[in-house]
């Protein structure tokens, strides 16, 4: 089951090729926006870089969350995967995983490029990548709850933001903390464990909640 589902996602990703490049392009563009709007901020390595980077990550995530289940919902595929799937839970989990690959992982890989552009010091880059690697799965997982419940609304984007951004807060706090600590050369093991814990809890809770939300959305049709 997992294989066939992953194969499908992979094929769709290849056909709609733009979707791999996009999160990265979006990140770069927002970096540019910041550089233009607040040049003092990114002029030199600074404390704020971590904060701005995380905020950008959240926005990228938000923009891509809205599309997480949308195409499946519109085509009726979602409804079918709830009815026909052996284990609907797995279908949802795979969707979340693929969304993470397309945003979280891309962001992690892009960090060495984006971070310094935003004024992140080089020494902080490995720590930042670790923080993102631990934190972004939680964003995708928690975000899937909101995405599942708002997929039926045509104006879902902003309701989705309202519902999930509060959930993102702890990730944001620990994430920026790691980046700052890494920049200052401090130890950040404790915060990393916290992030990992949040991701773990999200992994256990989110797919069920997302599934419940999707069932409601499908029934709303």
């Amino acid at each position, binding site marked *: 089951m997992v294989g066939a589902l992953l194969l499908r996602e992979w094929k769709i990703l290849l056909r709609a090729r733009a979707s791999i490049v996009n999160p990265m392009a979006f990140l770069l563009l927002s970096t540019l926006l910041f550089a233009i709007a607040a040049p003092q901020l990114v002029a030199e390595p600074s404390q704020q870089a971590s904060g701005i980077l995380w905020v950008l990550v959240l926005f990228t995530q938000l923009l891509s969350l809205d599309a997480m289940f949308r195409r499946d919902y519109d085509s009726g595929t979602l409804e079918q995967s709830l009815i026909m799937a052996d284990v609907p839970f797995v279908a949802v989990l795979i969707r979340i995983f693929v969304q993470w690959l397309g945003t979280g992982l891309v962001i992690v890989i892009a960090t060495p490029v984006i971070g310094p552009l935003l004024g992140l010091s080089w020494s902080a880059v490995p720590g930042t990548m670790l923080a993102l690697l631990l934190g972004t799965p939680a964003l995708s997982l928690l975000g899937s*709850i909101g995405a599942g*419940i*708002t997929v039926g*609304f045509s*104006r879902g984007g*902003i*309701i989705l933001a*309202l*519902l999930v*951004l*509060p*959930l993102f*807060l*702890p990730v944001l*706090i*620990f994430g920026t*903390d790691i980046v700052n600590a890494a920049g200052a050369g401090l130890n950040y093991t404790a915060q990393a464990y*916290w992030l990992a814990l*949040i991701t773990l809890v999200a992994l256990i*809770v989110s797919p069920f*909640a997302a599934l*419940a*939300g999707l069932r*409601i959305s499908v*029934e*709303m049709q």
Partner: protein
Amino acid sequence: MKLKQKLKEYWHKLGSPRWFYQITTNWVTFFGGSALLLLVTGFVWALAFAPADYQQGNSFRIMYVHVPAAMLAQSLYIGMGVAGFIGLVWRMKLTDVAIAACLPLGMVLTALALFTGGVWGKPTWGSWWEWDGRTVSTLVLLFLYVGIYALREAIPDADLRARASALVSLVGTVNIPIIKYSVEWWNTLHQSASFSLTEKPAMPAEMWLPLLVMVLGFYCFAGHHVLSRMRLEVLTRESSSRWVAELMLNKNAVDGTPQTSTTDHGKG
């Protein structure tokens, strides 16, 4: 063993609208009356009789409305989470009414806590707003409220709206302590606050007694508010059953309705 059975019986009865309506008649009266009494006492006491703080002066009196509003805002959210849980697990329809009643009240009380906090902050901190653990977690609470409100507005079907808001309040409730502690932790790490909200001043009794009265008054008010809305919904749902017909027509004839006794205290 016996207690367990009693509880179980009670639980099943809760599902019966008629029983719910009957038993809460007295509760509503009780909550309404106590709210009136406590709030009037509290307001007068807090405004006119409680001593001023030796540092903050009279602006300290804002605490007597700020703290109850903040506490109730959180409690109502937790209440929504509990109602959501019950609604999801036992499919009890009344829980959605409870959520619908808690939601606007909680939202305005959160806003009120923010507002009174800001008003208090101006003379105390010298600014309307400071980014601090408490303030941030309250602001987040407001967003959670607004999010659920927006979600409810967006779903036309009553049944699905109930399920969706139950789910979201439940998830949000799980998140509340996480947000609260992480934000406080974050704050202590970043800004060493020039003020501490977390350490309770060793207040003398004449200071905290009025606070206790106000807090209790707020809770009774919320109890009255939520219960009356739930009762109205029960009546509407059951409007074609015999007991409602008897009740309503009886009330009409006598005119001294049991409700009006609880509704007078608004003038206070």
